[in-house]
């Protein structure tokens, strides 16, 4: 599904100084697998998620990324989405004046178009979205509002999951989707994610805390520190991190 080899990326700070953030990431995710990427603040977890989604603020300095044999790094963000990649944003953007329903329909139909599928008409679309919105426990009134505008933190995250359910990605990357969520919202998000689990779909969960992994149980856990994956294991590793923190790993590099 996803093969990342020696990926290196940097960003220019305000003083135009280049700061290296990803320093040789290697990761292979097979169909059906759920991977968790954990690590302290500033370790590069979110950068990895954003680089995969195609954010242009980062400079790719080396390495390769293949998504189902496609060279991901040459694709535009919209082409990556059409290829099946979905990023649930850590901070979903508020877009005043763009209606949420209109946005969702435009997104679904853009991806369908790029995949040479027929466009969904208003009636079909409405049927599907009414079903999915129940799954994420969102009030229908959020559909008629502007995208994320004035949504609470929890509603924004539910809206991300709703988009994910509508777009049915091949690879979903959840970037700290658990941050700022109460336990009810967390369970709802996890339920949404778990409903997507299937042998042909892969999920990467980027998180700070082990808590989310109680609900979305990963097959693999990776620890990222200073732009590198320094340790990988199964779900037990997450529990160990919860107990011991990251310090013991950081001092080992």
């Amino acid at each position: 599904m996803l093969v990342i080899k020696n990926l290196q990326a940097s960003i220019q700070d305000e003083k135009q100084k280049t700061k290296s953030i990803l320093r040789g990431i290697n990761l292979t995710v097979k169909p059906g697998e759920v991977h968790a990427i954990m690590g302290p603040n500033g370790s590069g977890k979110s950068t990895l998620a954003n680089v995969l989604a195609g954010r242009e603020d980062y400079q790719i300095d080396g390495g390769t990324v293949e998504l189902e044999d496609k060279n991901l790094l040459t694709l535009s963000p919209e082409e990556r989405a059409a290829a099946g990649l979905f990023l649930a944003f850590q901070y979903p953007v508020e877009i005043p004046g763009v209606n949420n329903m209109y946005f969702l329909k435009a997104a679904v139909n853009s991806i369908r178009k790029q995949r040479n599928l027929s466009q969904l008409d208003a009636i079909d679309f409405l049927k599907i979205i009414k079903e999915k919105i129940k799954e994420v426990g969102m009030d229908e009134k959020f559909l008629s509002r502007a995208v994320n505008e004035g949504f609470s933190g929890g509603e924004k995250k539910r809206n991300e999951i709703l988009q994910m359910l509508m777009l049915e990605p091949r690879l979903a990357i959840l970037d700290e989707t658990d941050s700022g969520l109460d336990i009810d919202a967390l369970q709802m998000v996890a339920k949404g994610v778990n409903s997507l689990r299937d042998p042909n779909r892969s999920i990467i969960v980027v998180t700070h805390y082990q808590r989310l992994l109680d609900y979305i149980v990963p097959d693999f856990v990776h620890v990222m520190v200073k732009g590198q994956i320094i340790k990988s294991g199964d779900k037990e590793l997450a529990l160990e991190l919860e107990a011991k923190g990251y310090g013991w790993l950081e001092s080992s590099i």
Partner: protein
Amino acid sequence: MIDASTKDVAVLNPSPFAALRLDNPFVPEKDWLQDIQVNQLKAFLHRGFPTQKEELWKYTDVTGLAKQSYIWPKRNLESFQQKIKLEKAISIVFVNGYFSPEFSNLTALPENVICTTISDAIIQHEDRIKPYLINKMDLNRHPFAVLNGALMTDGVFILIPKNVFISVPIHFYYYNTQQTEFLTAPRNIILAEAHSEVTFIEEYTSDNEAKYFTNAVTEIHAEENARVNHYKLQAENPSATHIANIFIKQKQNSVVKSFNLSIGGRLAREDVHVLQQETGAECYLQGFYHLTRDQQHIDNHVHVDHCAMHGVSSMLYKGIMRKKSHAVFNGKVFVHKNAQHIQAHQANHNLLLSFDAEVDTKPELEIYADDVKCTHGATVGQLDSEALFYLRARGIDKDQAMALLTHAFADEVMNQIKDEEIKNYVKQRASHVEE
């Protein structure tokens, strides 16, 4: 009379307008009118075209207009097709400045309302219209309004009597077809008597490529408790010059809404001047400008004078600039001494979509009363790159994502239009921009 005016013109030569006034084919001959025209032309030429040394013209160069010479348009009887139309409207159509009864439709006009051309009103309602035509405009501040007085072509005169409510909008459609250069100076006068209500749309457009010059003046007089909804749509051709002065005078508790769409022309200057003379008047002024061509220049000057207590004014102008275009916005709220308890808000937001586009924006407040609530703000920005990435990450391609965001930007002001049919019409009009 003819002799006298010929002499006057000879004295004033050389003037780009010298030949024009002698044979004005638009308005009927009246001695008082000719006197005014002679005097106003004299006054204008004495003052001269404004230059960029004047604060009000700092960013807009109109000196090129002084170097052209002008002729009247010819009457054109060819038929034409309005691309988009309002379903229900009283329509008054002018082709190349001439009233065109065959394209106009006044059947929905209530009997007690006077709605006719300026030239007809000078004959039929001379006493009613004369005070407005002899009224002197501020030469320093509104030189082109004075020029309009000198060279007035035709336009619309509306008088809505006391307590009358017109539910159907009145659409003035100024349409140009002539391929050679010419000048028109439309004048519209709208008198809304006490407790009356009217909605009207003045629209300027063309299908030609001529470098014509439209110099329009619209006067709105809202008496006590009158409600006037005004829409001005400027969609002239890419070579044209459009200069307009809109004067709004408000009496007690009147409410005037004025929406200004400006997308056309090579050079456009739109002045809106509101004078709240009595207490409790409210005005809502909105504008949207969209510049899409190299060298396109659109300047909006919006001025509100609060002369009485408890007045409300709200100004929201938004603009999008592409290519090497240049927009100017100047919004001014002037609160006179003793005009207490005023609420005034003004906002101007600009979206620059190209590296070469430029905007000069200046919101101003001048307050001489001490118990008022005034706010103002202006922004100049680009499309939100975070929002753009978010949309693209959901599969929406870059062009569509940009279009979504620019529409969202415009919609904030478009959605202030409460009448659905007019809103759709204005939106359609706004989307017909020439690139």
